[in-house]
């Protein structure tokens, strides 16, 4: 299974074999916190199943930064290869997910010995940076309905579905706003025929 999964990363067989023998597979249920804020960790990993979201959190405020999924961004890059670095973000499973965790020292060796691994890490960093700045820009410039629409489009892409279940509460937490504000923004988007809101699901038009 893992060999097929790594196909997206186009790693050489020697590297895949090393990852297989050096990593520990852990599974997470939907909504489970994979890595908590400010927890210390000496390992990083590759997602082999499922979908994760990365949030910045402070007291009761959250902001969704980006998703980690197999096809677009499978590496958990924000550990930064730094031994005993603390996580600045919270990582949560959106669906049942599995991650192969391996020691940062191993990651550092692969980084030096495999250009493909180094390039993958660099791309993951770049994706992470770009996503963080996009989130920051949204907080600065966009109206709530624009933020909500963009959020739903992103969700639709990572879930690969135009209709999907989601609650106002989940959205409010991801966008750092209130349920009532989300309800009003939904009304505006419905009136503009951009979405249809059903009881438990949302359809992007």
């Amino acid at each position, binding site marked *: 299974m893992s060999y097929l999964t790594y196909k997206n990363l186009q790693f050489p067989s020697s590297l895949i074999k090393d990852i297989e023998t050096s990593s520990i597979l852990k599974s997470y249920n939907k909504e489970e916190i994979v890595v908590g804020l400010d927890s210390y960790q000496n390992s990083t990993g590759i997602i082999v199943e499922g979908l994760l979201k990365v949030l910045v959190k402070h007291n009761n405020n959250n902001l969704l930064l980006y998703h980690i999924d197999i096809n677009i961004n499978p590496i958990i890059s924000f550990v930064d*290869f730094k031994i005993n670095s603390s996580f*600045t973000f919270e990582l949560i499973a959106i669906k049942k997910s599995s991650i192969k965790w391996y020691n940062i020292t191993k990651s550092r060796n692969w980084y030096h010995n495999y250009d493909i691994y180094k390039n993958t890490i660099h791309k993951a960093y770049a994706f992470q940076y770009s996503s963080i700045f996009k989130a920051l820009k949204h907080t600065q410039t966009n109206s709530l309905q624009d933020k909500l629409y963009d959020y739903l489009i992103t969700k639709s892409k990572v879930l690969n579905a135009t209709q999907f279940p989601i609650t106002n509460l989940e959205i409010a937490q991801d966008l750092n706003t209130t349920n009532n504000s989300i309800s009003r923004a939904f009304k505006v988007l419905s009136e503009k025929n951009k979405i249809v809101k059903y009881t438990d699901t949302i359809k992007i038009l």
Partner: protein
Amino acid sequence: MDLIIPHILKILDGDNQVNHYHFQPNDLIMTQKSDFFMDNLVIFINGIAEAFCEYEKANHFLFFIETAQVHFLNSINVATQTPLEFSLKAITSCDAIFIPKEKFLHTKDNFDTLYPYLAQDQYTTQRLITNSIIHTITKNLDELLYIYLKQKATVLKIQELHIQRNELSDSLNFSRESISRSLKRLEQQKRILRKPRSIIITGF
């Protein structure tokens, strides 16, 4: 961390591809979206600078940095050929070295030697940006303004900042009237003292 400077200079000793630049206060050291910063690694070797991003012709303050904190700010942009997401403006005299990407990326010894510093700086920069996001989503104008003033006073190691309202307005993307009202509230809270041409941070 400052031990890196002689280390880098030793690596690059005698290399005619390396350019040294000196910047005066308010000079732009790095500019957002410029292709130049995808092609040249910037090593910030001396001074204090302000990082900000520009959205729809308005600036958004991110953080202040000094060379004791961070030296490498665009290694990922050079490595992945992606545009820089923020700009960097000198607030004191600053010095930087620019290294062409060929020299940085294709000289494995250099890259591997610099790697621990690149990773450390990546981590520090991410922390600074994350803090900026947290401030943006959790703080009101009074708090943002106070954080800005206190951080600036801290990196400059002075209690009295000679700063204009329009400079604060440009950095924080609020109107001058809002900044003035906020400064008044901060003074009422005894967190600052307003003077005609400066602001004193109290309890600093």
